[in-house]
């Protein structure tokens, strides 16, 4: 049995792998899939076996103190050092932050940056919940989606699209969640683009209607539909919708969930900046207030920062100076902010958070986290390249930094997150760099740096090192000991080993490359020409129009070498086929250690 079982397995696997090339049969193809997966697992195990064998052989050598046993110690120590550093991820980011990094490296859907599509996304998300429910119902009750969804719910041609997809879902109901997820993505894109096409008036009306219906349906019809912090999300959406609907009062009244935030600043996106009514209304509100401070102090204020407006300098500075301890500055919602807040969830002492230039998209989960954690943070400041006018930022960053680090109420932990991609972008973002540098330099407390991209990690680390003080750096690319072992030990050693080849080849050719007989002379001449052809200097020996070393070299490679190589390859292939057949049929058994 010791030999029969391996022989049976070899035969079976071999036959299946051959058959799947000739047969479209699903079971054979399925088996082939399983076998190739097994092969991969076995290949992975062979690596572990290799490591164990390395330890055994070198351990034995050290134990018996055989010749050069000292080298074996080096091998074993290097092996364990690399293993431990690799697994412990010393100097690298923690698993938790790996997740964050991963999330930031991912672009979730095609959700645009502006507030409008952001809202579109959230509405889509909610509508997707309804759609999902309808889809599940329709699958169970053999109905169409159109008949299940409330008539008042305006979904454009999405109903028809969903109806089209229904048979597929029914057919593969066991995979319905996966399919529905895919549909959801499509719906997001569809709804988003349809929202974009609408003018402000129709957008206003339709989104309200959709939202009202969604809310009702979520609450009444879909009791099992889980939405964590749903209330907060609802408030959030309402507030933002109200903002879009140019109704600041409604927006203010819906800003309940911003408990600790008195000032909410957002930037005009392209859509809103064209909205003269809103700008006019804001200007009017400002004029009617006794002072800017009065304007902000009255209540929670939703303030739209206008682009290219000289007022910005003054306004922003005033806001920051007055409400520095209780301020929320936002461009639009970026998942990076939420990620930072997420990462801070374990740090109850945190009072300062800073994020710079994050260009990432938002998902429903982030909204939840955002709502969950934002109230724990007393200061949350965001600067980004979209805020126009360096002067504003230059003027306002200084007081921010000053105040950030004069607070002594609690242990200060600051989170810095920055995405600084290319050198060109770095130049553009010089102000942010200055801010970041200054922040780090002024930091008297622990700084937790979260580098989103490799570039930003490098930059933050560099500045942290310059600034001194305690810090934690979470990143894989820079600072990870494992990567440093790879870069500074493994790479040079491996290159050195290969480079030695040049010396031995030179020495060996000098001694062995002799024209001892006709065959050797032929080899020598061919080798000589190919060597010359392999470097541009060979062309210098060519006579234009008469003799070209490159062409001769090409000829040697293309004709004689190729013919011989083809012959060898065909021979090898035939050998492989016959050996494989012998193995599959159990004729060849030497690998089992027997006859």
């Amino acid at each position, binding site marked *: 049995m010791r030999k029969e079982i391996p022989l049976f397995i070899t035969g079976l696997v071999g036959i299946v792998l051959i058959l799947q090339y000739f047969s479209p049969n699903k079971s054979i193809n399925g088996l082939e899939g399983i076998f190739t997966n097994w092969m991969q697992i076995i290949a992975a195990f062979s690596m572990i076996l290799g490591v164990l064998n390395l330890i055994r052989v070198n351990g034995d050598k050290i134990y018996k103190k055989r010749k050069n046993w000292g080298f074996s110690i080096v091998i074993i120590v290097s092996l364990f050092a690399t293993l431990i550093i690799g697994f412990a991820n010393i100097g690298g980011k923690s698993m938790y932050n790996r997740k964050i990094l991963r999330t930031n490296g991912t672009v979730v859907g095609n959700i645009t940056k502006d507030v409008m599509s952001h809202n579109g996304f959230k509405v889509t998300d909610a509508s997707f919940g309804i759609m999902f429910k309808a889809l599940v119902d329709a699958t169970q009750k053999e109905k169409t989606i159109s008949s299940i969804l409330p008539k008042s719910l305006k979904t454009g041609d999405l109903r028809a699209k969903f109806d089209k997809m229904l048979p597929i879902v029914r057919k593969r109901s066991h995979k319905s969640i996966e399919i529905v997820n895919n549909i959801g993505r499509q719906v997001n894109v569809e709804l988003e683009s349809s929202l974009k096409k609408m003018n402000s008036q129709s957008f206003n009306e339709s989104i309200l209607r959709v939202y009202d219906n969604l809310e009702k349906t979520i609450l009444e019809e879909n009791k099992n539909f889980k939405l964590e912090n749903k209330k907060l999300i609802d408030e959030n959406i309402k507030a933002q919708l109200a903002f879009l609907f140019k109704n600041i009062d409604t927006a203010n009244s819906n800003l309940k969930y911003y408990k600790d935030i008195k000032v909410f600043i957002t930037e005009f996106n392209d859509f809103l900046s064209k909205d003269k009514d809103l700008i006019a209304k804001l200007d009017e509100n400002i004029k009617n207030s006794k002072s800017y401070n009065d304007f902000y102090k009255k209540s929670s204020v939703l303030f739209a920062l206008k682009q290219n407006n000289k007022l910005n300098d003054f306004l922003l500075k005033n806001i920051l100076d007055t409400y520095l301890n209780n301020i929320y500055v936002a461009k639009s919602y970026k998942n990076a902010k939420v990620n930072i807040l997420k990462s801070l969830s374990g740090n109850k002492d945190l009072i300062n958070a800073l994020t710079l230039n994050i260009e990432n998209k938002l998902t429903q989960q982030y909204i939840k986290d955002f709502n969950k954690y934002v109230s724990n943070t007393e200061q949350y400041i965001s600067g980004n390249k979209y805020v126009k006018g360096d002067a504003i930022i230059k003027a306002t960053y200084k007081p921010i930094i000053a105040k950030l680090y004069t607070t002594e109420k609690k242990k200060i932990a600051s989170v810095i997150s920055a995405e600084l991609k290319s050198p060109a972008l770095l130049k553009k973002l010089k102000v942010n760099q200055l801010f970041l540098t200054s922040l780090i330099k002024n930091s008297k407390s622990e700084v937790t740096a979260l580098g989103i991209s490799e570039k930003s990690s490098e930059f933050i680390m560099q500045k942290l090192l310059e600034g001194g003080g305690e810090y934690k750096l979470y990143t894989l690319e820079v600072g990870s000991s494992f990567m440093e072992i790879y870069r500074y030990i493994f790479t040079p050693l491996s290159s050195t080993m290969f480079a030695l080849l040049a*010396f031995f080849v030179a*020495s060996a050719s*000098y001694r062995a490359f002799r024209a001892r007989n006709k065959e050797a002379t032929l080899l020598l001449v061919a080798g000589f020409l190919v060597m010359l052809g392999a470097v*541009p200097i060979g062309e210098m020996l060519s006579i234009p129009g008469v003799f070209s070393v490159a062409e001769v070299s090409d000829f040697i490679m293309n004709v004689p*070498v190729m013919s011989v190589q083809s012959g060898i390859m065909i021979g090898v292939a035939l050998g492989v086929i016959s050996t494989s057949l012998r193995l599959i049929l159990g004729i060849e058994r030497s690998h089992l250690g027997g006859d």
Partner: protein
Amino acid sequence: MEKFFEKLLNIDRKIIFLLIALSTSVPLFYFYPQKIIANKASRKYNDAINKLEEKTKKGEEVVVLISGEYDPGTVPELSPMARATIKKLLDMKVKIIIMGLVPMGPPLLMEEFNELLKEPKYSDVKYGIDYVNLGYTVGNAVVIKGMVKNIKDKYPVDVMGTDLNELPLMRKVKNFDNIDMIVNFSSMGGGVKTWIQFAKKTTEESMDIVFGCTGVMVPESYPYLNSGQIQGLLGGLKGAADYESLIKEPKNATKYIFAQSIAHVIIMLFIIIGNIAFFVTRKKRV
């Protein structure tokens, strides 16, 4: 005279080593530009890549999979050609998927990639949309075989552990049918053979495969080129320098090839001297 040649025949190999060391290192500091004439194989490689441009110009999305199967030892030969190829592909707005069948391949390719991304003109190139790094997975031929049916079977996540379904580029690429070209840079035994065996279809609509390899692998790769199983071949440093000259982007390969030229000349001089010494002293030995 004979004594001199006898001494020459038994020359201390340390002298050879020293001359080789000087011939490879000194030219790196004193660069002399040489006229590089691309060989046929390199020209084919260039043509195959340029063929993709026709598609991109029409507005079609072109996806190229680059597999790195080399280690730091062969970086001087393979990284320059990888860099030049990636640069050309980025210029052509081609979507790139990086992977490797040896652990060191993808990081080495990504080193070149990240260097290029520092250039301002590539600041718009975004991970997940324009390129993806799948990383290394164990299994060699088995991996390729699995990817033929469904890439996500063998690579459910990318190198950072992101689900491929979350990456817009990978949502569009299910298997090799959605890939326009495979570029393989290899210094390993199997080389491009494994890709041809498992990824290449025998039909005409199969994607193109181009191959960049070390100098010593060139002879065994030629049959695949001439049979049309691969559409282009860059052999060693010369191949890399050829391609750099073809795309008019002279970089490291163009610089290193001068050192290689000198080293080749030194080796050839040694062979000539060795043979002269051999013939002069032969009578005595007979």
